[in-house]
């Protein structure tokens, strides 16, 4: 366990990767959005912005990067794959939780200040407003984790099976998606599917995302166990 903490500290030796860049993206996305709102004349309607997602997409890249850059090095540092995995994903979980809490707080401020005084909506999750605070925070957290794990898993697949593995994975995903869509169309399931999506609650979406994260997490670990530096 001690060594897993050391892995996390190793990931933090360069402060930018896990802390600096996310902070910069969060600050810049807010500043830019705010500037745009100031410049564009106000109308009465609420103005939505997706800029808060920017950092979430960075986490996809971070997932790729934290594996590709540091896994071979961690092997030279005599760290087991398991310890590397625990230390790295554990560190990310802490970062993601912090950002989720921050977003929740910012969402509350946003509501209290009437959309930063400009009737904007950047952090507040309108569709989940009725859910308890914990669910709102968890939802953000799980989405970030899902993107990170996606990046991490793809990087692991690449590390283990190189370009061939990547190609096979993309083909499988494409075949599965097309196959399911064809099946749904052929069986006339679309209305039911639409109804199913409409019936989802913030909690159930969180649950599905958690399941997705768990599958990717286990998949990444199993793939990493046999990866070579």
């Amino acid at each position, binding site marked *: 366990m001690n060594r897993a903490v050391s892995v996390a*500290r190793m990931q933090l*030796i360069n402060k930018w990767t896990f802390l600096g860049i996310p902070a910069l993206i969060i600050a810049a996305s807010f500043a830019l959005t705010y500037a745009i709102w100031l410049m564009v004349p106000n109308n009465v309607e609420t103005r939505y912005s997706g800029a808060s997602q920017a950092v979430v997409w960075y986490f996809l890249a971070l997932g790729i990067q934290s594996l590709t850059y540091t896994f071979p*090095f961690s092997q*030279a*540092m*005599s760290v087991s794959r398991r310890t590397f995995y625990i230390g790295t994903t554990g560190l990310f979980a802490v970062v993601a939780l912090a950002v989720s809490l921050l977003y929740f707080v910012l969402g509350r401020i946003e509501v209290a200040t009437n959309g930063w005084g400009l009737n904007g909506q950047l952090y507040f999750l309108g569709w989940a407003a009725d859910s308890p605070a914990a669910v709102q925070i968890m939802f953000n957290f799980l989405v970030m984790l899902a993107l990170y794990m996606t990046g991490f898993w793809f990087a692991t697949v690449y590390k283990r099976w190189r370009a061939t593995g990547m190609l096979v994975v993309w083909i499988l995903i494409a075949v599965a998606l097309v196959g399911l869509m064809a099946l749904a169309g052929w069986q006339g399931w679309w209305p039911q599917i639409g109804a199913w999506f409409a019936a989802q609650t913030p909690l159930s979406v969180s649950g599905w995302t958690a399941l997705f994260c768990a599958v990717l997490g286990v998949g990444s670990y199993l793939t990493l166990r046999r990866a070579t530096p």
Partner: protein
Amino acid sequence: MNTPTQPPVIELNNVTKRYKDTKAVDGVTLRIDGGRIYGLLGRNGAGKTTLMSILTAQDPETSGDVKVFGQHPYENDAVLSRMCFIRESQKYPEDFSPAQAFKSAALFFRNWDQDFADRLAEEFALPLKRRIKKLSRGQLSAVGVIIGLAARAELTFFDEPYLGLDAVARQIFYDRLVEDYSLHPRTIILSSHLIDEVANLLEHVLLIDNGRIILDDDAENIRGSAATVTGEDSKVTDFTAGLPILHRERLGSLTSVTIEARLGTADRARAAELGLEIAPVSLQQLVVRKTMAAPAGGAGVDPRTATDPSELEVAP
């Protein structure tokens, strides 16, 4: 040094590593007691790096029994934390500087000596703040050498650590290795093909060829275990009759034969009487002679054709 109650540092039993249809390591059985500087010698592609990757669980074996410090090293932090293996083409986080790589090593190697690392960095004139991806090949090698030395791991591997290092820098490495090893005895496995340079540093030699260990002996036993006899053809043939021959060369009526045999005072006197010259065979020459009969390149070669030492007489 180990007391008899401790397990040997390394114990391999019939270990094989297969890549598709090639055996990079082929049924190696080996025991390393430790507390010495070992030389892991062999041609490129002979299986040196693969063997070290197996021992450090960076690339585990296909079959066989591997024990390091009495346990299997794979996913075993207790065992791994006692070793250090910096690869010849070691990758570092792209945005790291050497100083950051050392800071990281300090987190994982409990015997890490930062002062020693700093002194070495100064001797190698390594720019500590420059990004690793901007370093020259030699400077990159220096980073690996410094981590390997300053980590003072109980079991340290150096895999061709000198790529891009000039003669002066290599000498610094050898000097510091001997010096630090004297003060902090441990098990060091040095893989190299600059054999002449490292020969005197080694206490024990492991020669690997086509994935098999073909020589496993103390360096001092090997010294003088072969000799080259030069002189008149018939007299050389007469003198070397019945001795294992590693190599034969002819120049006019002059023949030069390398034999794998220890020559005593009596043999030398007899050779002198016959007017034959006896020259020592260096470790490097011996390795060349012993591995030359094998087809070039190691990898991609059917290991079943790997040569038994006794078949080496038919050298090209």
